[in-house]
């Protein structure tokens, strides 16, 4: 039972943290809960489909279907995160000091919510399909231990949801005026980590046969399969044995998102002193 709990929880960590972050980022924006919920539902449906057609997916595209699919949806998530950051920078920067105004501004940004819902769906779908397959294996194997294992899996899933809550409430303790900067940073690192994962799938498919040497091995210091390692893996993309290509992709993604966020931010970031409220309409 403990084994099943650990396996399911391990798979649920990434999705759990991402859902928590998205909920915190969109906190107070009307419709955001609905969007996040829709993202989760879409993710679960997608995960079930991916699990059901795992065999067909694996043999698609000359046997690299699974890698291409993973690389594609991870890249999609990276772009959605980048786009969200850019949107927030271009619309909300000068208002960042006033959380309520920022909320109003975001209110008009349904597209930004949509981008984050896609990110939630991708995270849930990727991790969820592995959980679905694991559960399917348990049920198919049958026997008296199956029920025990399913209970363990349920608890593992619950722990993943709890991690979502911890992430959300943790971020909620950050003062609103700081939250914007913190989440912008979080999302940038999250995106870079996902981009590095996508690069690995392309390498595994043999589509990026370059810079494949291991850049470093810190598995003895902090294994990325440990709980803390997994959390860091999601938050900043920590990997204990990355390829050189992964490191390069990671760094480039960080730099590009940072540069784009800067480029799209309004030139005039400071508010003019003592502007009468009436002029703002």
């Amino acid at each position, binding site marked *: 039972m403990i084994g099943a709990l650990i396996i399911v929880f391990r798979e649920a960590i990434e999705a759990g943290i991402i859902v928590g972050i998205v909920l915190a980022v969109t906190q107070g924006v009307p419709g955001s809960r609905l969007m996040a919920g829709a993202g989760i539902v879409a993710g679960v449906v997608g995960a079930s489909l991916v699990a059901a057609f795992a065999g067909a997916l694996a043999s698609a595209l000359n046997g690299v279907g*699974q890698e291409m699919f993973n690389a594609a949806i991870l890249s999609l998530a990276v772009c959605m995160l980048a*786009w969200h950051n850019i949107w927030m920078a271009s619309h909300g920067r000068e208002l960042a000091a006033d959380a309520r105004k920022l909320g109003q501004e975001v209110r008009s940004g349904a597209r930004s919510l949509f981008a984050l819902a896609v990110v939630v769906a991708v995270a849930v779908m990727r991790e969820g399909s592995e959980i679905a397959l694991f559960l399917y294996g348990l049920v*198919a194997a049958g026997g008296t231990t199956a029920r025990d294992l399913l209970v363990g899996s349920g608890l593992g899933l619950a722990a993943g949801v709890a991690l979502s809550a911890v992430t959300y409430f943790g971020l909620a303790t950050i003062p609103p005026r700081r939250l914007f900067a913190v989440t912008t940073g979080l999302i940038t690192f999250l995106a870079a980590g996902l981009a590095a994962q996508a690069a*690995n799938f392309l390498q595994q498919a043999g589509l990026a046969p370059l810079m494949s040497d291991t850049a470093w091995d810190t598995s003895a210091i902090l294994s990325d399969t440990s709980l803390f390692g997994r959390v860091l893996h999601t938050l900043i993309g920590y990997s204990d044995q990355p390829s050189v290509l992964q490191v390069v992709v990671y760094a480039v993604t960080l730099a590009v998102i940072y540069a784009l966020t800067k480029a799209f931010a309004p030139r005039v970031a400071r508010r003019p002193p003592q502007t009468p409220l009436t002029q703002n309409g």
Partner: protein
Amino acid sequence: MTPPLPLLALAIALAVGVAAPALADDQTQVQLTLKDHKFEPAESTVSAGKPIVIQLANQDATPAELESKELRIEKIVAGGGTITVKVRALKPGRYRFFDDYHEATTQGFIVAQ
């Protein structure tokens, strides 16, 4: 002044689609089977410095996930299914792989010499 969503989506599709399919020659094949949650052979020897192609045939009815951090692979194989993964040219050493769903009991090694 933000780039429209569809444009971004297109950009990803292009980026992934254009990734050049290259490299084929001089690869070492490693054939593995998974039966009763055991890898066969449990240990394979390959030449160091040559890219490897691992083919895994899952003869169990249950799905498995072939995973290895050292080899940087992570791929689901359906019950009764077969998968192929590419691995970089290895430095001499002993590399562990396992079924992520049964990590403690289902593992194997690739030894590069």
